[in-house]
């Protein structure tokens, strides 16, 4: 090969390499940016007075006097709206029955749209469910609901062969000639005074329990559950994994039995996680009965079994990478095998073992399938440490799935879902970071 071709090949290979890194970076950005942007929106957002009222009533947070002042200020404009409704209701009563019939259902949907925006109206029976006690707590949602209040979505079915197209009709036009027509421009013009948007930092999103199945409130029970499950799994899997790795590297005699054990371990690492989930249900809960129902304990055990192979492999590699000379030096000084393992080999291998542990910890925190049947529930309060042996818990990974697909109001609470995703990513990063720091400290100690 002449020098020219070699150069071209070299350059093109470099270009492909850089190109793939760029593509990977872009892909990462595409995934991460919306998560961070939307997730941060769960804590930092423009909140309305409804949000502050909800916080005060449900969590007792906020300044009572200040809130009363704000409510009074908003009340001035709200009263106008209520008066317009009352005026139209009186007008409706006085109409002849045919016109009344026509307007009654239209008025019903106007009232519904307005309730969705600003909360219960006078004349409504008090709601039992918290979600109906308040209007929109977030300004961007309030603007959405304002649009729904001003315009009615309709579908154009004129072309019988094609799918219909959506178009919007101004509600004001539908009430032309009645007193209600004034309410639409009024609410549009005074929305800020009615809702009083303010930049809000809702740290409670991370520390409060959820209210009315995640529609309001925070995600503390999920965060706590995730921690319990991941750390519980580590408590079981880490010591067992390290002991198994010591056995494989130091005690086991090479032979058919050991190689079978090794390949069984490798196979176990490749088993899909849902299989572990079903196994956990069948073995830990139904057969062993470690708890009466799903529980953190059963979930942790299942996760532990799932991450065990990874830990064993990582620990094994770490132990094998300790130079033979260390071991020989220790033994030659008259140390016993056990003593050598505990004082020389394991400390030297510890950074590598911890790396394996960290990867597994992240996996345990993020897995959904193993905990569906063994530990996770869609709602539940934060459990105390005493309850981990008997109580199931909400956990981020499962609740993200639940909110994305099963929740009855999934489209209304996307911000909670994104907040959970960001919290999960954050927890995994945090766990990794602390383990990296721990590892660095141990390495430094070993060297120094």
């Amino acid at each position, binding site marked *: 090969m002449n020098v020219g071709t070699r150069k071209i090949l070299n350059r093109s290979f470099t270009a492909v390499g850089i190109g793939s890194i760029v593509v990977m970076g872009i892909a990462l950005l595409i995934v991460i940016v919306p998560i961070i942007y939307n997730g941060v929106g769960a804590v930092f957002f423009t909140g309305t007075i409804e949000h502050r009222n909800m916080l005060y009533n449900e969590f007792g947070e906020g300044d009572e006097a200040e809130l009363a002042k704000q409510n009074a200020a908003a009340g001035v404009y709200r009263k106008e709206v209520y008066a317009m409704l009352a005026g139209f209701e009186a007008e409706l009563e006085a109409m002849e029955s045919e016109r009344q019939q026509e307007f009654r259902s239209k008025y019903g949907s106007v009232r519904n749209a307005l309730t969705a925006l600003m909360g219960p109206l006078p004349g409504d029976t008090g*709601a*039992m*469910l*918290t979600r*109906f006690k308040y209007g929109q707590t977030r300004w961007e949602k309030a603007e959405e609901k304002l649009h729904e209040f001003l315009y009615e*979505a309709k*579908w154009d*079915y004129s*072309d*019988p*062969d*094609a*799918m*219909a*197209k*959506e178009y919007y009709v101004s509600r004001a036009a539908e009430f032309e000639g009645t007193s209600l027509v004034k309410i639409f421009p009024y609410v549009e013009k005074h929305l800020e005074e009615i809702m009083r948007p303010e930049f809000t930092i809702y740290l409670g999103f991370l520390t409060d329990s959820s*209210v*009315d*199945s995640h529609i309001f409130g925070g995600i503390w029970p999920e965060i706590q559950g995730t921690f319990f499950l991941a750390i519980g799994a580590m*408590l079981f899997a880490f010591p067992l994994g390290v002991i198994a790795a010591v056995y494989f590297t130091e005690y086991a005699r090479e032979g058919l039995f050991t190689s079978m054990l090794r390949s069984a371990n490798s196979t176990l690492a490749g088993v899909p996680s849902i299989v572990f989930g079903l196994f956990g249900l069948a073995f830990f*809960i*139904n057969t062993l009965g470690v708890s*009466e*129902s*799903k529980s953190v304990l059963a979930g942790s055990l299942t996760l532990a079994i799932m991450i065990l192979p990874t830990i064993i492999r990582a620990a094994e590699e770490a132990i094998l990478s300790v130079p033979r000379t260390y071991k020989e030096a220790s033994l030659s000084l008259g140390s016993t095998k056990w003593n050598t393992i*505990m*004082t020389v080999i*394991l*400390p030297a291998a*510890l950074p590598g073992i911890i790396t394996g542990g960290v990867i597994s910890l992240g996996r345990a925190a993020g897995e959904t399938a193993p905990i*569906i*049947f063994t530990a*996770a*529930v*869609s*709602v*539940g*309060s934060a*459990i*105390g*440490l*005493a*309850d*981990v*042996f*008997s*109580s*199931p*818990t*909400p956990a981020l990974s499962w609740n993200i799935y*639940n909110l994305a*697909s*099963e*929740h*009855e109001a*999934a*489209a209304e609470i996307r911000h909670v879902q994104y907040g959970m995703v960001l919290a999960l990513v954050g927890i995994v990063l945090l766990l990794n970071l602390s383990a990296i720091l721990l590892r660095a400290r*141990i390495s430094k100690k070993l060297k120094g």
Partner: protein
Amino acid sequence: MNFFKKILFGAAVLGFMAGGTAEAKSKIVMDGSTTVGPIAKSFAAYFTKTKGVQVTVSESGSGNGAKSIINGTCDIANMSRAMKSKEAAAAKAKGVNPVEHIVALDGMAIVVHPSNRVNKLTKTQVRDIYTGKVTNWSQVGGPNASIVKIQRESNSGTQDTFMSLVMGKGNPVSKRAETQASNGAVKNRVASTPAAIGFIGLGFTDNSVKALSIDGVKPSVETVKDGTYPISRPLFMYTNGQPTGVVKEFIDLKDTSEGQRMISELGYVNK
């Protein structure tokens, strides 16, 4: 090695904390239907708030609810269908005596995308769509688009009800139907697919999908209650034996005015 001692010490402290604070706490564990889920979750929140009893709710499908109560791993099983004779036999074999409580009534809404001009179908038409006999919306008065059929998984009580109330015996759902795992997922799929048809609990309908009139009757609280809407069903909670204590209080919520208001606010029908 200092490090290991630290870990051991930490574990011991955790153990003591767990042991020290352990006390008999009453709690309720619920498992089962995603259709009954919203009722169970609202009841749970209310019950925890007023009685201070912890209630956890899992939504894993009616079939799993039945399995959980049979295996004794939940206190209350939520189900959107009655227990099958096979399940009852399995329960008996394990010494479990499932007692049924009807919580509410629910209409099963057949939903399509709002852009679909079809507003009504007969039960026979729905059946023909799902068996695969009718494959294009134009055959039932709609636009020229091939129908995307969406069904639920075999574990679902809603699927069982659909099979018995709409399909009938010997009419399997076409193999080309797509399967989704919850009411919410079916709703999302239909709301994002113009030519789709699916079935969900009445409480899950909103304006992202259009509920069809079946045999000329529009699904609503009134038509489900008076029985004119043809596809409606009771929703159940099952307990092992007659409930006692907090479980009884929880089940009895459905008969209180608070419970009934929650049920109707969620869009379900009080029995």
